């Protein structure tokens, strides 16, 4: 624990008379400072976050049921079983679908709205945003502060076959087929309906994020693009996206982690995994396997699989960003 007081004294020594050196390395103040400031948070973090993560890897190699102290080390048997578990594979398929669709759809819409709001003003004079657009910003950001479980509950009512708002609207528009159509109960529409809800909840958040990043791009760049004759769409694709690529990368990884989780949305919309498990996701399966069936070893193997998919996804996002010409710096 060497401190920074060496450069401190030398630097202040330049400007004024020599300062007396303080050797206070082991003073009570200093020791207690490090114990409390670094010791407590790091120990707490190790116990409640890192230690469980590490344990999960070990448990995934055992047949532990959780409620008895005995567990047998069974090597990779859980993983072999996972690959033959058709329900789990179905869940992986659904999670990967969410992983591919959700970040892309959400971020494209968010980016489009952000571009319209910041750069959608008249094409002469200085670069301006769309007039009177703050209302859109305020309203679309609002779902971010509603707990996701409440969003899911509200939408499960909107989708309700007989009393729901959606079918009510469709019927009043003359869609008789919508008479008690079960959006969440039909294997063909269930996943799409869930995806819509998640997009609904998150577009505003990423829109606000992108608005800030687009505002960070110097206006001269947009003026230059306009003088060169670039249209709005071209500007968005060739100017905005490359210039804020690190923010997009961060957003993409956040969205990917969220899409792989999706647990809370599913708990409110499709608690049972949907019709024919058509919306079952890894996190739901893991939760049931652990806390309902008590197969903690097996559930831990699912957790490790989920973690590996997450890391793989992050690696792919980094690689794509790099290959298309971005830097490799992590924007935190």
């Amino acid at each position: 624990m060497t401190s920074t007081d060496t450069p401190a004294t030398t630097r202040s020594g330049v400007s004024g008379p020599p300062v007396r050196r303080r050797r206070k390395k082991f003073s009570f103040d200093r020791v207690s400072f490090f114990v409390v400031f670094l010791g407590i948070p790091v120990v707490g973090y190790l116990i409640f976050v890192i230690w469980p993560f590490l344990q999960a890897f070990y448990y995934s190699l055992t047949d532990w049921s959780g409620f008895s102290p005995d567990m047998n080390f069974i090597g990779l048997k859980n993983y072999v079983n996972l690959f033959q578990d058709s329900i789990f594979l179905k869940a992986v398929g659904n999670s990967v679908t969410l992983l591919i669709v959700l970040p892309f759809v959400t971020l494209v819409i968010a980016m489009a709205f952000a571009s319209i709001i910041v750069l959608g003003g008249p094409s002469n004079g200085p670069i301006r945003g769309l007039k009177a657009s703050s209302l859109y910003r305020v309203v679309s950001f609002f779902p971010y502060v509603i707990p996701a479980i409440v969003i899911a509950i509200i939408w499960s009512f909107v989708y309700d076959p007989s009393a729901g708002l959606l079918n009510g609207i469709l019927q009043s528009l003359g869609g008789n087929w919508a008479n008690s159509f079960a959006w969440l109960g039909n294997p063909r529409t269930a996943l799409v309906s869930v995806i819509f809800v998640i997009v609904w909840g998150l577009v505003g958040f990423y829109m606000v994020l992108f608005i800030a990043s687009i505002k960070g791009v110097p206006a001269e760049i947009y003026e230059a693009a306009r003088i060169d004759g670039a249209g709005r769409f071209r500007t968005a694709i060739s100017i905005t996206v490359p210039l804020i690529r690190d923010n997009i990368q961060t957003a993409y990884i956040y969205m990917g982690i969220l899409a792989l989780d999706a647990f809370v949305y599913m708990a409110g919309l499709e608690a049972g995994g949907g019709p024919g498990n058509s919306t079952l996701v890894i996190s739901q399966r893991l939760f049931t396997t652990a806390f309902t069936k008590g197969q903690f070893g097996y559930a831990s193997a699912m957790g490790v699989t989920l973690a590996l998919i997450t890391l793989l996804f992050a690696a792919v996002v980094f690689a794509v960003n790099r290959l298309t010409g971005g830097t490799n710096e992590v924007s935190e």
Partner: protein
Amino acid sequence: MTTTQSEATPAVVADRASTRTQRRSRRGDRTVGTISHVVLVIWTILIVVPLLWTLMSSFKTSKEIFASPFSLPTRFNFDNYVSAWTTAGIGSYFVNTLIVVFGALILTMLFGAMCSYVLARFEFRGNRAIYYLMLAGLTFPVFLAIVPLFFVLKNLGILNTLPGLIVTYAAFALPFTVFFLFAFFKTLSKSMAEAASIDGAGEWRTFFQIMLPQARPGLATVTILNFVGLWNQFLLPVALNSDPKNWVLTQGMAAFSSQAGYSVNFGALFAASILVILPVLVVYLIFQRQLQGSVSIGTNK
């Protein structure tokens, strides 16, 4: 829009080109502007309508709700709200949520600020290691940790208790807090801390009286983001806090909605949703600018 008139001087070309573009663009601008507004208005309606419908339905009886999604409530009263608050227990979940969220917020902000300060401003062996450990905590899915975490809390005797939940919330909010404040403390100037140290202030005093006040904007941002995150927390309470009298709002709402199918009080469920949304809506409308600012700073460094 490039011009090919070679005989004209560049200035004239530019001039003509710009008038032509302007005429064309003014018409185009109007179209683009209209389409933009139409698209954004549709999105705004999509956001607002389900929420307003929830508000309207919260005054209807279950029978009215099933009669038609559009019918207005026949009697305007707060019966549903009363039964949501008391019978469904939303009131006590609210209190639990406030205790847990504020407890965890204080813990994670205090220790997050301390930890990031030490990591950012002192050099010692293991500094980078701790930093990367925090990064790992941000990247790995909480689902990986949830099973062992259950037993960690059980062995410590704090499973299904509010203190156990507070500590876990705080620990899982720590990496984000440290990351954000780490960058913030790095940018603060060293000279004031040095001056304080020369004047004989110890490390504790330097932190609380000199550094922490300077970090106030950063602290405000992280507090807001952590608050929203902890308020929405769902997995941790569902897995680690199964005693109904300790339930927080999110898990209480989930339980309420899944049992409503049997004991059917849909009006009360709508009312409960409004009860959860309303306070955050009010706070949001007041702090809307700061919150959106926080999101932008928090993720666009």
